[in-house]
């Protein structure tokens, strides 16, 4: 949750929407009025919402993947070469530290570590796993409803509340 830590005591207005069209429309209108949207809940991944929010399609997780991939190649080559160097056995008349067969461990470790890092990146950035769901969350958001969370100060809470209703929210809640 962006800013959740220092805005812990702030009030949030959560608007609930019934379908995609409504929520996208609401996002556009909130943005048009320069009301900062904290987050948008949806039961599934939606490119419409992403586009409406103006977010890039790829997150920073890609750098985790890149790092994992490079680390994987290094690990694979190092493991194959280092272990062979321990005894320098000759097998099949080959040089004790042959280079061709290091390709396979390098490739497989590339994939493995890249996947580990991608997953790790996703979990880290989402602060997962976590024990407590945030208080803005509504169980129906994973089922059939959409939600928009907007933080407000004491002064503009009422107006944002009204805007939500005006933009088509089926239900608007104020959460301290």
């Amino acid at each position, binding site marked *: 949750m962006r800013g959740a830590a220092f805005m812990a005591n702030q009030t949030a207005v959560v608007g609930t929407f019934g379908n995609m069209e409504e929520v996208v429309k609401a996002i556009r209108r909130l943005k048009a009025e320069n009301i900062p949207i904290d987050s948008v809940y949806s039961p599934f991944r939606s490119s419409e919402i992403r586009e409406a929010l103006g977010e890039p399609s790829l997150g920073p997780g890609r750098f985790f993947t890149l790092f994992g991939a490079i680390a994987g190649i290094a690990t694979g080559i190092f493991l194959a070469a280092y272990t062979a160097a321990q005894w320098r*056995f000759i*097998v099949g*008349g080959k040089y004790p530290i042959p280079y061709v067969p290091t390709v396979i461990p390098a490739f497989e470790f590339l994939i493995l570590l890249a996947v580990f890092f991608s997953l790790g990146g996703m979990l880290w950035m989402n602060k997962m796993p976590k024990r407590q769901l945030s208080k803005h969350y509504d169980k129906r958001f994973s089922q059939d409803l959409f939600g928009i969370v907007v933080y407000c100060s004491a002064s503009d809470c009422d107006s944002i509340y009204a805007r939500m209703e005006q933009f088509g929210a089926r239900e608007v809640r104020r959460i301290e």
Partner: protein
Amino acid sequence: MQNLNRREFLKLFGVCGTGAVLSGCSEPKRYLIPYIDPPEDVTPGVAAYYATTCRECPAGCGMIAKNREGRVIKVEGNPAHPISGGKLCMRGQASLHGLYNPDRFTGPMRRGATGQLEPIKWENGQDLLASTVNGIARRGGTGRIVFLTDLITGSLEDMTAYWLSEMGQQNGHVMYETYAYESLRQANKVVFENDAVPTYRLDGLDFLISFNADFLETWISNLEFARQFGEFHPLKGDKKNKFIFVGPRLSMTANNADLWIQTRPGMEYAVALGMLRIILDGGLIKGIPADRRAYLGAITADWSVEKAAAAAGCDPGMISAAAGEFARAARPMAIADGRSMFSANATETAVAANLLCTLNPKSLDAVDFGRPHSYSKTASAQSMKGLADRMRAGEVDLLLIYRANPVFSLPGEWDFAGAMKSVPNVVSFSPAVDETSSLANLVLPANYSFETWGDYSPRQGVSGFLQPIMGPVFNTRGLGDILISTGKKVKSEISFPWRDFNLALQGYWTRAYKDSGGSGTFRSFWENLLMRGGYWPQSPSPSPAPSITTTAFSFPAPGQKPGKGMPVVVYPTIQFFDGRTANHLWVQEIPDSMTQTTWGGWVEIHPETAREMDLGKGDLIEMKTDFGVVEAPALPIYTVPKGVAAIPVGQGHTNFGRFADGLPANPFKLMPSGIDMTSGGIGNPGMYAAVRKTGASFDIAHTDGSFSQHGRDFWQTISLDERNKMAANGTQPYIDYPLPKGYDESKDFYPPHEHKDYRWSMVVDMDRCIGCGACVVGCYSENNVAVVKREQVLMGREMSWIRVQRYFDDETKLARWLVMLCQHCDNAPCEYVCPIFAPQHSVEGLNNQIYNRCFGTRFCSQNDPYKVRRFNWYSFSRPSPLKWQLNPDVTVRQKGIMEKCSFCVQRIIEAKIEARQKGRKVKDGDFTTACAQTCPTNALIFGSLLDPESRVSRMINDVRAYQVLVELNTKPAVIYLKRVTQEIRA
């Protein structure tokens, strides 16, 4: 002590003393405590070597037995011995399985009221024997006691005769050997006035023709002949002597010939007579005295070469070719089998062969009647039949048996077992149960040859010694000791004054000591005898040539009618001799040279005949002759001509222990029952059998995957002319050297690697290999290779590290052998596929297999093009006491592990330690592998390629050198030399 190097001398030196009569061997204990009173000559971890004599057949080869911690673990030939010369055949090496046979009699037994043998005490057993003998002696009469033994000589023969005479018996000692060579002896009597089996010397010949004599397998003294054949036949310089085999079956011996003249069974003599006729008619040999010419001319009058060829069923051109070769040779020789049980007209064939020998005086140099073989003492078939008749008539009160097994090997129709039932007392001294001993009502088991004192003389002038290499495995006693102590009970201390048989033996040899001129004390003479393994005067004086008679002899006229049914060839094999080794695991497990079959008998039938008769491999067929019937599985194979069946002897035991029983089939049961009154042998008019398919089957456990090598150049031959041409040109063979110099940029991806100090390698000279399989048994006994038995061989799971592969030539259908073992490749395909480095390359070039590292993916075997790796499908066990044979220097492999030839790495290490103690490197010839050690023809040569002077380094550049599957670029360190072929033309 000729040919005895220092190392062997030191080994033999350990023998001085009284041998190793050790305590505590009969009960395996489970804790390791050092000896408080160490037995003499036993140092834990250090082997002691004792000279002794092989008693597996009458050939009497000298052996060196290796003793570790009180147990015999390996036998090898005694290099000083004139017969074995350091080599040993398959049967000799397997003698350890006779010693450790789990079905040996464990102690004295008598037949109780229930009819079962029940254990008794030695004292009681001997009292029983003494009182029986006493009773017979009191009743009087001679011939009431018959002592039936196998061929024994020297002190034991003397003792037996003395014992019988003390008991008031004359001529009671009958020495029964299945092969008594009655026909050979008769032929020698006819031609040379000598009723004996002479000593033959094949090594000095330049031409040999054998009339069905399988001298490389069982004939008289097969190991000695194999050694001599190794001198006679292989390529020497640019020459190769010629050898022709005449006979109905492609035996192992026949397959070593340059020409196999295939004849009708029993018609070999026609070829000899045809040859005689051609030589006489053409005047091919000069200087034959006129009277002999006339004599021979009369004999061969009817035998024009066409008639002879028609009678023999062969091409006349072959007879004239053989005659031409015989005549051209400077020292030719003809030998004949002379065992009438195996062939009709055995006497005629042997006479004809002898007549050929009379043509050239030089031939007779190779036949020595001055040193007759002890076979000459054995009882003829006629006298055995007489014995059976006497027993049946109630003329025998006591039959004593020692190692002879006539119930198994006499013709079935004589019913020797039935005759034994008429003898009130049958006592067996045989060490192990067999068909004859199992009928005894008192069993007083004698020691095996490794546990006893004794001597054995295979021929005049050669006496081998036996000494206890270890304490008795079971509760047994030496036969001599049993005779002495019962003698004391029956008679008195005065008649039998010796404390034990050892003293009697020393007494016996005191005479020889006196004859030898008596330099030094008897003690030193005696110790020297024991150390050398026997007594053979250094320079035998030449015997006079035998006189040649002109006794009239008539040959059956050409064109006799064959009998009804399918002609049957019964033949002995190198494994089983006459069946006496069938309870030895190794000889059962190791495939027969020609058929590559293990564990069980078979009937060889030509594949085309089999197709005509609708017989497939393993179809059980019934063979019925006029005298008996056997059932055995059919084996379609090219070793017999079309329309002929062949059955090996040795199998078909019914009461010979767990390893021999129940396997088909015993062809002695088919034997003709008549007697040939002139020779005293079995009267064999030729065997013809009615063949019937029973509908059942008995799967043949064989190890060959194909008859043909499918053009893959595993075995390669080169003609003598081509070889000489190439050698003259200085042609270099194409070899991928398993050395850095074998690196070739065009096909090697990785750089070459160096070796440290040694690069072990083997050269296999296929021109010398006779296919006998001695190397295989040597390997089994040295390396604790497991015996898997029939069911597992059927699954293809035999464990052999080295094998003598047999292929048939696609055109000639003659067999070719290839000794296949781990090639210790420099670029070994098996190594890199192992995920955990269980196999890898040592700095000395060995392809090491680390057993405790292996977890059994079996990829190495999959990727091994030579298929020499063997997997332990189970933890193969060895019933006690067979496990006592295990070599403590070699790991016993557990289930789930791959194993293979290690080039006897334990011997390499031992040799390196010894060399280091001497402050030098291992020299060529310091040691060799177990297989190479025992090869009778020295076909296997082991050494290091880093030593430029070693034999292997010199031999790998021979023009005949090649590597198997060289196109795979594995750079094998086993390099083969092509077999040299030569054509014999008219």
